[in-house]
């Protein structure tokens, strides 16, 4: 175990190592965010930015329900994606932490590779698979099904499939880590106390791997609301999500203040939802404890 060393900011050893990160993330993460916020108080005229300092963009956003419908759709897709990811990730993460010991590393390699490979290529692979003349329909016909069984490419279902595909590995890894950290003797103690497998699972394993479930959910939710590759390529761009709206605002309408404001609305609303959920959980837990 590494021992913590107490240091002062004037210590060159600390300064030398911390400064690059601080400079990088201040200059290329925090500062751009602040500037994005300031841009929302400007206007555009003939595709040119005007430094006007007023609330025109914000009053536009709050008066048009169109933006909010798309935002609602995005958040709904995000939550659906989180639920599906947890559902498919949990059994795999659980097995990986407890029962697949013999081939644990091979499984991890396969999942990591599938997760980290070029997203554009994988999404394109899904298009080839799900297309009307694609691999899925061909294989189904070969085994005797009628033609055109798989027809959900270019719908919201395909978008959801793409999101779950791209993001579920986050849940597998976070849940796996928290299950492998559970002290095995707690579960054995539950058995000794007469609990069945299911009961021990429900009362020991599930509550103890909550941090992993939460970390995975938050990551997946925040990343899914910013996705635009899946809705565009698999969903066919027919029911746009916020990210696509933002992209269009910048690229087609060249309206920076509006795009900046929509970006901030999306971020603030999704962080608010995350906080709401974590707050709800901690209140529930406090209620149980008392």
């Amino acid at each position, binding site marked *: 175990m*590494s021992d*913590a*060393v107490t*240091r002062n*900011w004037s210590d060159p050893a*600390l300064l*030398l*190592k911390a400064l*690059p*990160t601080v400079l*990088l*993330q201040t200059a*290329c993460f*925090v500062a*751009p*965010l602040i*500037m994005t916020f300031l841009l929302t108080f400007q206007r555009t005229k003939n595709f040119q930015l005007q430094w006007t300092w007023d609330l025109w963009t914000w009053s536009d956003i709050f008066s048009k329900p169109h933006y909010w419908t798309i935002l609602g759709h995005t958040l709904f897709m995000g939550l659906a994606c989180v639920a599906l990811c947890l559902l*498919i990730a949990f*059994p*795999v993460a*659980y097995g*990986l932490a407890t*029962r*697949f010991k013999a081939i644990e*590393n091979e499984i*991890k*390699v396969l*999942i*990591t*590779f*599938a997760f*980290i*490979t*070029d*997203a*554009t*290529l994988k*999404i*394109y*692979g899904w298009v*080839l*698979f799900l297309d009307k*003349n*694609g*691999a899925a329909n061909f294989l189904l016909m070969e085994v005797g099904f009628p033609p055109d069984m798989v027809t959900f490419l270019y719908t919201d279902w395909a978008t959801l499939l793409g999101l779950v*595909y791209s993001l*579920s*590995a986050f849940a597998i890894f976070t849940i796996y880590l928290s299950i492998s950290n559970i002290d095995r003797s707690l579960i054995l103690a539950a058995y000794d106390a007469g609990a069945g497998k299911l009961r021990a699972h429900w009362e020991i394993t599930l509550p103890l791997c909550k941090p992993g479930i939460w970390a995975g959910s*938050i*990551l997946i939710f*925040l990343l899914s609301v*910013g996705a*635009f590759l899946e809705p565009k*390529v698999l969903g066919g761009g027919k029911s746009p999500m916020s*990210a696509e709206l933002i*992209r269009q605002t910048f690229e087609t309408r060249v309206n920076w203040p509006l*795009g*900046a404001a929509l970006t901030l609305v*999306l*971020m603030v609303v999704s962080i608010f939802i995350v906080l709401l959920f974590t707050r709800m959980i901690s209140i529930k837990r406090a209620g149980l404890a008392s």
Partner: protein
Amino acid sequence: MTATFENRLIDIILWSSLAAILIFFYIPIFTLIAFSFQEGRFLTLPFDGISLRWYGELFRNSNALDALWNSTIIAAATTIIATVIGTMAAIVAVRYRFRGLKAFQLLAGAPLAFPQLLLGIVLLLWFSVLGRAFNFNTGLITAIIGHIVYITPFATVIVAVQVHNFDATVEDAARDCGADSWQVYRYVTIPLLWPGIFSAAIFAFLLSWGNFYLTYSLAGSARTIPTFIFSGIAIGSSPLYPAIATVVFIPGILLVIVASRLRRA
């Protein structure tokens, strides 16, 4: 229900869910590999024939080769810089106690949970405003900076795991033997952290290589493999893309295997 029966049932459920998810994960990958050997011009089944024709076309297509080159340059630069900054940040975040540690950890990790498209847009606005003031355009350099912002936190987390398991007394021992602080780093700290640093570098390379959103926003007119394919599939399918995919998959899986070996060692 007897205990053995219960056990068998759980095993069956867990193993079949593993099989299901691996099939799910590899459907698009194997679809692409299969289609890369298609002889004809159209990506439909059944195949006209099996051939390596599109691999040949790929290496004669200058746009595809340019994209491959740009991807390599961006990924190489990002890997080196992100791994160095991330390693230093990991040592700071795990080993040192100082005022503002929590703020430092938050700052070092925040881009992880920030959607890439939005990060790309925010940076594009930033570089556009700066570019107007200092007269530069977006291109490979701005794309590299964007990748570094997003990938450094990943490198930090991976190295931090290694630092966490690091026995600091060997550093003290080296110091007692008269090593100065540079020698301690050169001969003790870095060699011991090397598996973590190297696997962080591999992940940084793969994340940068496959990155779409940041490159799309920040690379200006330069194309990398992901943006080259995206702009292509917006117009229509081409049998070149499955061939590119297969060529890209092989080094990818090899790197993931190397990284996994290293972390076990």
